[in-house]
């Protein structure tokens, strides 16, 4: 399905099996977490036995999408900014038999794409959406995102962000997604397990991943160029739901909760219901 350009004698086994070798190395910045999350996605795909023939990667616009687009050896469908869920609705309803993994970002999903995201959750569209939340708009050079922390200095909030960040997971839960979870890019084991669970859950699986953006978040918000510092910031500002119970309200301020927030596999979605509708009304 992909022609191999320059063949390297030895390649990472996941790259060999699933990625277009002429597109490697991918164009993420040094230290960016997108590659780590992609690695976890590929592990999940591998462990579940999904193939490039039955699985489509769908992207939007932003680092999450631009970096992963056209790396997958199967079909890659990159939508306009914010419209990934709308395109995925058409794709899935045309091919309900295929698996769709969506790579979206904080702006793509939470700003311009907010409405489509909400309705995809409401419809419980049977796809797996991975939200790459790096708290900033990376691809366009470091502007504030709906997920940027309060007070963050970015290129469009030079005096500090005065808006509270969006809790996308709570929105997904409220809108009706079947499976909702949040992890960090460095939570490899639980993230892979979550992605597998999401793929296997009928309905919309929404997995938010907090990941480091050393180039923009590190530079503008944290005044550091070190990827390790950004990873440390994420670790210090996240807590498991169990540990959160021991913290006071003040201690919890500005911290992300990790783990699973919803698992409702019994909840029917539009794909399943449409099949039932066809059974009842199809005349030919």
């Amino acid at each position, binding site marked *: 399905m992909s022609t191999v350009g320059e063949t*390297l*004698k*030895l*390649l*990472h*086994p*996941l*790259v060999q099996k699933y*990625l277009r070798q002429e597109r*490697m*190395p*991918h164009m*993420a*910045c*040094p*230290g*960016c*977490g*997108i*590659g*780590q999350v992609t*690695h976890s996605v590929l592990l999940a795909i591998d462990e579940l036995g999904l193939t490039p023939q039955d699985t489509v990667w769908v992207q939007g616009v932003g680092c999450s999408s631009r970096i992963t687009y056209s790396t997958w050896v199967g079909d890659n469908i990159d939508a306009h900014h914010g419209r990934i869920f709308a395109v995925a609705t058409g794709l899935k309803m045309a091919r309900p038999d295929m698996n769709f993994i969506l790579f979206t970002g904080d702006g793509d999903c939470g700003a311009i794409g907010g409405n489509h995201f909400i309705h995809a959750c409401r419809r419980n569209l049977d796809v797996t959406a991975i939200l790459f939340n790096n708290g900033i708009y990376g691809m366009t050079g470091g502007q504030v995102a709906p997920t940027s922390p309060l007070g963050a200095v970015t290129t469009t909030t030079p005096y500090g962000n005065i808006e509270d960040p969006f809790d996308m997971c709570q929105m997904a839960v409220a809108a009706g997604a079947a499976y909702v979870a949040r992890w960090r890019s*460095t939570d*490899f084991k639980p993230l892979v397990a979550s992605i597998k669970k999401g793929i296997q859950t009928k309905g919309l699986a929404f997995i938010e991943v907090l990941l480091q953006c*050393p180039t923009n978040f590190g530079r503008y918000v944290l005044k550091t160029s070190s*990827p*390790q510092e950004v990873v440390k910031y994420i670790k210090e500002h996240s807590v498991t739901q169990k540990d959160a119970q021991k913290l006071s309200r003040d201690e919890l301020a500005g911290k992300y909760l990790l783990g699973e927030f919803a698992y409702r596999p019994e909840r029917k979605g539009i794909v399943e219901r449409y099949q039932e509708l066809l059974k009842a009304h199809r005349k030919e």
Partner: protein
Amino acid sequence: MAITIIKDFCKGCGFCITNCPKKVYELSGEMNKKGYRLPNPVRIEDCTECGICDLYCPDFAIVLEKTKKKGKGKEAR
């Protein structure tokens, strides 16, 4: 463990160096053609084959091969 660093993929982020529990890696003086300084698994005999370096590498630049004997030898490519 046989550890191969795919030079052309490495972007010098340093995650393998800072996250290895056994401090197997060090920053080497060698640069790839993009100017990134490569890691070097100098203490391969201490490697416990945990695989953390592979997971932490965002660029699929570390290829590991588990061996029965410890410290099989390293190769940078």
